[in-house]
């Protein structure tokens, strides 16, 4: 597994204490912010204004969670986020599956050019699309609809998913398809009977990346969907801030509600996500 911390010489650097310290640094760095928000969400408003501040809640309460659902349509924000992410992921997967199959399997004359184009698109700054898309969506009356977000999110994830799927297809032996075609399958028959079932793990990996991309996006969601009924979660969370008040425990509760679904996804599919990110998803 490891390459740098090798050496059986048993020096201090590869010893057990070092590993323990390393694990603590990594875990505190990665998880403390989320943990802190969780602790905050369990504190009462009164406890929050104690000085010096308390770290662990004295009297843990779920009041803030009830408040978070009562004050704003949190369930609707979640639903919007979920549906936009799901629909754009489905569209991305469909389109990138076809493109990746062509790039991995066919002898395309402009393959190099197409790959360069895909990489160029993956570095494309979404911010610059803000102005013309805002103008177009406004003209078409698509502001405050799911479509206004689904289309740009699909483009956002398309390059990454195409690269992940292309490298995945390249790992499926061509002989399997050739055998199916010799057995009388058409190319499409071979595609659906051989490639589709075998590529399920790759599609799944690409799907998680696309889903997280959409779930996290903020700028376009903020700009295109201002109607509270159509806000996605990152944008909806802003509504908790009053003009003068900033109810941190309630905001924290809403944040926890927003973090949990993706955290579950990540916990279950962690290895797959890592392999996807390193296969072609160089965007973060």
């Amino acid at each position, binding site marked *: *597994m490891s*390459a*740098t*911390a090798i*050496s059986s010489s048993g020096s201090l650097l*590869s010893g057990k204490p070092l*590993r323990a310290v*390393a*694990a603590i640094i*990594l*875990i505190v*760095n*990665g*998880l403390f*912010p*989320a943990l802190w928000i969780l602790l905050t969400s369990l504190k009462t408003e009164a406890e929050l204004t104690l*000085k010096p501040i308390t*770290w662990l809640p004295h009297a843990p309460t779920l009041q803030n969670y009830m408040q978070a659902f009562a004050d704003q349509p949190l369930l609707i924000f979640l639903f919007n986020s979920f549906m936009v992410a799901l629909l754009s992921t489905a569209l991305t997967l*469909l*389109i990138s599956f*076809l*493109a990746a199959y062509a790039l991995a399997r*066919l002898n*395309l004359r*402009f393959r190099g050019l197409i790959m360069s184009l895909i*990489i*160029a698109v993956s*570095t*494309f700054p979404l*911010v*610059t*699309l*803000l*102005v*013309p898309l805002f*103008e177009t969506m406004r003209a078409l009356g698509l502001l405050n609809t799911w479509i206004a977000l689904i*289309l740009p999110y*699909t483009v956002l994830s398309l390059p990454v998913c*195409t690269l992940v799927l292309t490298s995945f297809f390249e790992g499926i032996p061509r002989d399997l398809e050739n055998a199916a075609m010799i057995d009388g399958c058409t190319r499409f028959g071979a595609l659906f009977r051989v490639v589709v079932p075998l590529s399920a793990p790759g599609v799944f990996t690409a799907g998680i990346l696309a889903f997280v991309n959409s*779930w*996290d996006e*903020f700028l376009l969601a*903020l*700009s295109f969907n201002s109607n509270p009924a159509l806000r996605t*979660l*990152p944008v909806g969370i802003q509504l908790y801030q009053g003009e003068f008040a900033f109810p*941190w425990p309630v*905001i*924290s509760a809403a*944040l926890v509600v927003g*973090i949990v679904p993706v*955290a579950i996804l*990540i*916990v279950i599919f*962690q290895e797959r*996500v*890592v392999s996807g990110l*390193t296969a072609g998803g*160089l965007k*973060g």
Partner: protein
Amino acid sequence: MRTGHVAMTSRLEPAAERVETRRAMLSRLLDPDETTLGALLLAPAAVLLGGVIVYPVCKLLYTSFLDLSLTSGLPARFAGLANFQQMLEDPVFWQATSNTILITLITVPGALVVGLGLALLANLPFNIRWPVRLSLLIPWALPLSFAGLIFAWFFHSEYGVVNDVLNRVGLSGAIWFNSPRLAFAAICLTVIWKASSFMAMIILAGLQTIPRSLYEAADVDGAGRVRQFFEITLPLLKPTIVVALIFRTITALQTFDIPYMMTGGGPGTSTVTLAMYIHQNTVSFLDLDYGSALAVVMFILSMCVTAVYLRMISGREGAR
């Protein structure tokens, strides 16, 4: 697209093909030749990219030369370089641009150093790997806007955990968001935290491809660990790091969510980024022509970085 066209004409050419029976045509449709199939499979992606990237970019360039006064109701007219001239005389534009470049110059190397450190730690031979993996994945999956909010709470002047820790170790806490410099520092720290774990994952994957035998050979030769790091690890990681840096640079140029959530650009306009200024002009002021001109600047900035990247990739492939 062009490949499909070529295939189409060649199919129509020979007269004999006209007698092709319906059944043969159907089977051809179900089992097309490679070029036609390639064009068909790539068409949806091409249509989407055309509609959501190429057309909007053309429109962006066009709009940046117009004078659209949406509020006055006057028709749009061609304004030449007026928007760009306005930009040069706009102090907020210069502030936003210099903030954006400064954030890039600080957070890209910052995230690289922190990410490299995290990757080296994560590469130790742990018995159980999942806690380490999760502690790199969770920050990656956390929305940027959430990270902004969480860190705004961290840096809260009265109840924030940062000031609490500072007080506990005997330093005095600061009112982070009242001072342009401190607010900027808080933003940069947050961006570095958010970006470094992704950087670490990419570098970790690179580390794991370095053959162990290289280190064993170096051990035999008596090379110390530090020397091994600089002479084996870093050179072999270089391609991975360069690609990660380029993507990081392009993302840093677009910084929006974190400063928007943490400071809203304040105090004053001291932490406004170019992306925030584009958003403000477009969505809040509906000043689409000026917003377009600003976005053109952003487009040029990031295309320069992309061009460097593409040149590097083709250079590497050419060398093979």
